[in-house]
């Protein structure tokens, strides 16, 4: 016998009262305390906002440029962009994990298991979505106003900001779709972030962790918060966009 008598005895007690056990808050460090919770929400939103901002900065010129400029291979890029709508987050996470690993090609950045790695992963996921949506809207606007803009003496490059101004309502939809993708995904951030407490733990990875600890009600509560935050952000942006449209309506 191994000298496990105290443990065995302890196990017997737990066997007799299996359902009575509840994790005490002070001993386990497992409860999500309020300041932890605020930090988790801040990190989630901070990472997703940053990733969406980067993706938008890439997508605006790219999506519009694909509509305005005609060049060989354009069709292929458009098809790929639309195909990457359904890019599995876990695949993106895995590829970035291997690339950012100290033994990988980008290892010298030392970014694996940092918020920066999560930003990159989410930006990769959001860019095709925002680009594709902006491309579609730009295509429509270009078909309608393109000749008019060019005959006014604008070059195709100069037409891009004007097209973007015309489709600004669609841009909001595109950015929100991208943000929704980033804030809700778990497969990529848990791989490249590592779900480190206080550093890379987001709302979605916390939900995964709580579920794995059998705290289903706490996981569900966090899920409700996540959904609530997503809805309020969308509502706020739409309200602001509505104002902007009313205010700018006399320009047309």
């Amino acid at each position, binding site marked *: 016998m191994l000298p496990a008598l*105290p443990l065995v005895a302890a196990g017997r007690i737990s066997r007799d009262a299996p359902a009575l056990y509840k994790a005490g808050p002070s001993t386990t460090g497992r409860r999500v305390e309020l300041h932890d919770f605020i930090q988790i929400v801040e990190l989630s939103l901070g990472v997703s906002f940053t990733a969406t901002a980067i993706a938008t900065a890439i997508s605006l010129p790219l999506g519009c440029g694909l509509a305005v400029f005609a060049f060989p291979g354009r069709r292929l890029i458009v098809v790929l962009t639309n195909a990457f709508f359904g890019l599995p987050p876990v695949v993106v996470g895995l590829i970035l994990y291997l690339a950012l690993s100290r033994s990988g090609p980008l290892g010298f950045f030392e970014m694996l298991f940092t918020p920066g790695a999560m930003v990159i992963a989410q930006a990769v996921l959001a860019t095709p979505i925002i680009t594709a949506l902006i491309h579609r809207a730009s295509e429509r606007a270009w078909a309608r106003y393109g000749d008019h803009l060019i005959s006014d003496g604008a070059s195709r490059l100069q037409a891009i900001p004007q097209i973007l101004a015309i489709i600004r309502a669609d841009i909001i939809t595109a950015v929100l779709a991208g943000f929704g993708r980033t804030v809700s995904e778990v497969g990529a951030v848990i791989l490249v972030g590592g779900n*480190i407490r206080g550093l890379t733990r987001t709302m979605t990875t916390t939900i995964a962790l709580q579920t794995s600890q059998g705290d289903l009600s706490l996981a569900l509560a966090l899920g409700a918060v996540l959904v609530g935050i997503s809805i309020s952000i969308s509502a706020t942006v739409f309200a602001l966009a509505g104002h902007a449209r009313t205010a700018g309506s006399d320009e047309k």
Partner: protein
Amino acid sequence: MKLLRMTLVLLAAAISTGPLSAADQSIVLASTTSVEASGLLAAILPQFTAKTGITVNVVAQGTGKAIDTARRGDADLLLVHDPEAEQQFMNEGHGATRRQIAWNDFIVVGPAEDPARVRGGNDSVAALKAIASAQAAFVSRGDKSGTNAAELRLWKQAGQSPDALAKEKWYRDIGGGMGQALNAASAMSAYTLSDRGTWLSFNNKGPLVIAIEGDPRLLNRYDVIELDPQKHAGAKLAAAKTFADWLVSPDGQQAIGAFQVGGQKLFVPSAAAPK
């Protein structure tokens, strides 16, 4: 406002070389789900950080994945529980030192109605034989974790190879962490092998109770492994050594021993025990 600042900080982090600069005293500890999920690390790390100023960032994975993370050079220190995989890691020359810090034990848990009639005994191998002949549902981690490795060693002693088990309908390989396995076993009224720490702090036991415990073959030892400076020159080995030394020091051992869940000790400090 705070959010905006956070966003800017993250943006800077994304552009520069990441927030972990050389001045930063933080290490990445690749560890197992059992020491993280049980709450052990969350309980003892603040004491270490208060004393040394070193932050320990825990990436909790199954032992197989944790060892692989360290092998790639993405961790500064390892805390795992699979003696065979650890020995292989040492043989490959990745590890510098390997020290035992604590132990606890595995248990076989199963549904209270006990379809395989194994409850109450302490012979884990006999129990697995009975589960196999009753074709009672059994959940396997299937994730190359330390617990998964221990489970497969026990099945081998019970005369079952992993290949043969994979063909059985009652043997359910879920490919997940300990908590996921317990969730699955709870939902399917299946048997499974668990470490005691995760079991005690798990909150969704459902019909599950302890079926087998106290078998010497169920010993579960945890080791801290420092990395080889030649193979892992990029790792923060000095800070990692400080933490490894603290774990086996009287202070660290006392902290491990003092950790309790629901009044029960989960880990027995054993740095001084004969190996």
